[in-house]
């Protein structure tokens, strides 16, 4: 399944996506109109009346809470809420239209056998089978844009996932994004025994190899696995590997796979997280939201279509490079 070339993408954009964009623009403009009306004409007067004028007038004129001016302010408040609700509904329509028409067209152009479900996402139960974010105590988990299909004989599914850790409440509420991007799950026919985890290497990048490795080794005290020090210095600069078994980690991370992962890191700049374990591989690509339409600018540009296609290409490349050779399916310990 070759990802569309630049020329094919231009054709796709001109002949299939552009006609859909015109319709999409109507939704976007309606949403913007309603938002502007709500913001400029309803919300400020509503606040002024509610918090400043109404109590002042009430006090000055000795009016009771049943007086018409109080009813007027409540009325404006309700109209404001109604406009806010309507603009939110318009936004939902706009997003739905974008996903059902534009995203679907792009995905179908990439591979007509892929199935796209805009509202579904990878379940928390599946996500938790990987050890990638096991120690991060995620308590907010949401997603959308679920795609399932088969690539090079490997069954896969992915969706956008937004995983956060929220601590405290009220003014002390603190939210940390643990992962936000595309999360891919592959069915890999292997008989591995443990987990091999690959993370973007921040410690070595910030503190250099000596202090960085020292910090990584200290980190293993909190983990159940071991730090794997690989012989490829460039790979070590960009990734850090933890695994249950030193030999199995090297069996999975052959020099070729290390080279491919390094090339992805250099080309795409997105942090990549990988866990390969019995029968599965989980891959997190921290792209942020990519299947969302623009609101204050044109909904879809050629650049955004290209970005979606490139993300698919990245997913495909990772799947191809991680595909264990048929011989590796015999792995037993």
């Amino acid at each position, binding site marked *: 399944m070759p990802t569309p070339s630049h020329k094919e993408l231009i054709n796709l954009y001109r002949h299939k996506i552009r006609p859909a964009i015109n319709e999409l623009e109507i939704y976007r403009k309606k949403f913007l109109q309603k938002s502007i009306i709500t913001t400029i004409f309803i919300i400020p007067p509503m606040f002024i009346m509610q918090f400043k004028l109404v109590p002042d007038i009430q006090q000055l004129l000795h009016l009771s809470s049943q007086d018409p001016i109080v009813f007027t302010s409540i009325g404006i408040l309700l109209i404001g809420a109604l406009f806010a609700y309507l603009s939110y509904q318009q936004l939902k329509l706009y997003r739905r239209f974008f996903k059902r028409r534009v995203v679907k067209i792009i995905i179908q152009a990439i591979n007509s056998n892929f199935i796209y479900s805009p509202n579904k996402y990878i379940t928390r139960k599946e996500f938790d089978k990987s050890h990638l974010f096991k120690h991060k105590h995620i308590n907010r988990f949401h997603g959308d844009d679920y795609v399932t299909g088969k690539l090079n004989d490997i069954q896969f599914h992915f969706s956008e996932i937004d995983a956060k850790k929220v601590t405290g409440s009220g003014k002390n509420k603190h939210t940390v994004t643990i992962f936000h991007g595309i999360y891919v799950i592959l069915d890999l026919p292997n008989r591995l025994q443990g987990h091999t985890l690959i993370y973007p290497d921040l410690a070595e990048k910030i503190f250099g190899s000596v202090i960085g490795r020292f910090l990584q080794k200290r980190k293993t005290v909190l983990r159940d696995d071991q730090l794997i020090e690989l012989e490829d210095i460039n790979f070590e600069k960009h990734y850090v590997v933890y695994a249950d078994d030193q030999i199995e980690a090297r069996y999975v991370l052959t020099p070729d796979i290390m080279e491919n992962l390094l090339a992805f890191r250099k080309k795409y700049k997105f942090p990549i997280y990988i866990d390969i374990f019995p029968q599965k591989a989980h891959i997190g690509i921290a792209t942020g939201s990519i299947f969302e339409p623009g609101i204050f600018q044109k909904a879809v540009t050629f650049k955004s279509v290209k970005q979606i296609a490139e993300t698919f290409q990245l997913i495909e490349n990772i799947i191809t490079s991680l595909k264990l*050779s048929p011989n590796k399916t015999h792995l037993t310990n």
Partner: protein
Amino acid sequence: MTIIIASTGFLLLLLFFIYNSLISKKNQVTNAYAGIDAQLKKRYDLLPNIISAVKKYMEHEKEVLTELTELRTQALNSQNELQSMQLNSQLNQKLNGLLVSVENYPELKASQNFIQLQNTLYDIEEQLAASRRAFNAAVTDYNNTIEMFPSNIIANLLGYKRKHLFEISDIERKNVNVANLLNS
């Protein structure tokens, strides 16, 4: 007095950490070597099956098959790590040569039994490569520790010596000329 006690305490603590780290690294090397041994054992066990599968097809390669059998016996009875490494390197070359010459025997190449044996062998080779890389990582870590200050002092007192890395032989390092091999 307090300073002397504190300094002695610190020194003892340092000695304790260095000694334990050295023992741990030495054991990691032994453990990594055991990993290679396990894979070599798998290969030794597989070899007779390969030889018996190819014997009836490869009448002209009898000499190679005999050499392979002899090398396997020698490698199984090797006395130390270095000898074992050298014998296995020779065994590897002979085995690779044999697999290349299979190209000249289409009937053998198509045999399901041989294909399965070949796949198992490739898998063992990949596991062997991974085990060797793990061994080299453990040896590098060990060698660094016994050469760096201050752990080198304790390592010298304990009589620890540098260990050899697994290196591919000069013949294996050369790019394989497949055309020549097929013509040979």
